[in-house]
């Protein structure tokens, strides 16, 4: 829970930041997803190494 201190955090500022948190979170998750997909595609394309089993 948000603990309101002796200053007024202002509902407008809090809502804006919560929205930004959602957007930033979504962007970060999307970037991670793309990264994982990229790795998976690269892993399939890479030929087995000479020392590999």
């Amino acid at each position, binding site marked *: 829970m948000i603990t309101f201190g002796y200053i007024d955090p202002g509902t*407008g500022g809090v809502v*804006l930041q919560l929205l*930004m948190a959602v*957007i930033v979170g979504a962007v970060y998750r999307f970037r991670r997803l793309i990264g994982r997909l990229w790795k998976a595609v690269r892993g399939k394309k890479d030929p087995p190494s000479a020392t590999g089993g």
Partner: protein
Amino acid sequence: MEGCSGEEGSAVRDRGLTLQVDSASYRDPAGFVFLLGDEIYRAVDADHWRVLAQIQESGLLPELIHTGMVVNSRLVPSDSDEHVALQRACPGWAHFLWHERLPVLSYPYEWSFSMMADAALLTLALQEKLLRAGFSLKDASAFNIQFSGSQPVFIDLPSIEKPERRDIWMAYSQFCRMFLYPLLLSRHRGISFKSIFLANLEGPDMDQTFAALGVWKCLRPGLVLDLLMPRLFSRVPPRKVRKMESSALKSAADPSPQFVNLERLTRKIATLRASRRSSSHWSGYGLMTHYSDQARTEKDTFVRRLLKEHLPKSVLDLGCNTGTYSVMAAEQGARVVAVDGDSECVDRLYAEVRSKSLPILPLVVDLANPSPPLGFRNLERKSFMERAPADAVLALALVHHLLVTARMPLEAICDLLADLTRRILVVEFVEREDDMFQSLLALREDLYRDLSVDRFASVFQRRFDLIERQSLTGCRRHLFALQKKP
């Protein structure tokens, strides 16, 4: 928790040391600041002491002090004699901080544009560093920043807390009111910080800023995020906000969104700082030729010699303009407060003293209407006249401006300078026939027909003894070095 053994602003005697509680330090229940003897201390409650001890142990507090972001401070060890004396003076309080005493306090309504921007950037940089270490600023008041010379420093250590959530900054709205909105109003509407903060010490709210900037200005991308959207969202009922934040609890520990916000605000303030106006009517005054080369040399030599002979520890340069004589006093080892009514002049001087790291505090103050005492019971913020007195005062090419522009009688100007001077006053008298005096008079030709250098000398004799006087060659200007009468 009991209060200290003296009322706010009152003094008590404790084993020979005078204890005085800072009358501005009462809002935050986490503690209060007081003066014991000549030292500044702060009583802190157990919760905030724990946080401060953690920051100290992590090495962050020493780093912040070393880099000059936080005022020089130390936690008073509980097994020291100092602690015993402090507890005796403040029964009921168990934890104390010592702070280095800043020579002169200044307030946001006395800062220039760049000073305000630098104070904002310091607040953001501090929040970013604290957030990385798992802490946060619980408020973002501009009054938590002071200037040590030209260096902004954070002074309110109990404002640091262990936050409930790290994705959002609870002090964001206060940061906007205290720093961003005043900067925007000054930049886009030319509204002075004085008129902003004297009207409301908490800074302008969103509605006032919106009304002053106008709808079209607020539709600019830079303002939509920090003004228009929060203003729209402020209509959301608090119970819905609580519901929203409860549903976003999963992300509460992730500081990434707040880092993005802090970075964005830092860029915005830095852009605003770079876009400040660079000239005003008086900022080119120093380049104007009121003096012949010889007169200029004589004036410089007179002031330099006086400073050398009397070695004042503190100097107040009134009407400093570009700060030539402030720099001269600083080079002689004095701690200088340089004052001018023109914000652009002060901004230029601030840029110079920042680049040279000189011990000069430039402030925007109108001497015809200096900062009054402000805040609750008029006790929170001290008046300029209470904070400013110095060992030596320089009032060079100032008196005629107060006489004509502010219409102050010569006797009142003498009293003003006597109130601000502890020992030495170096004052310049400009005759009525001088070109600058005439241009200030404009169409008011009948004013000050009886003004003469002899009248000036006799008026100032009431409060000062003459040390020496010199008339400058080739112009109608005279320098007086005066000693204040006891």
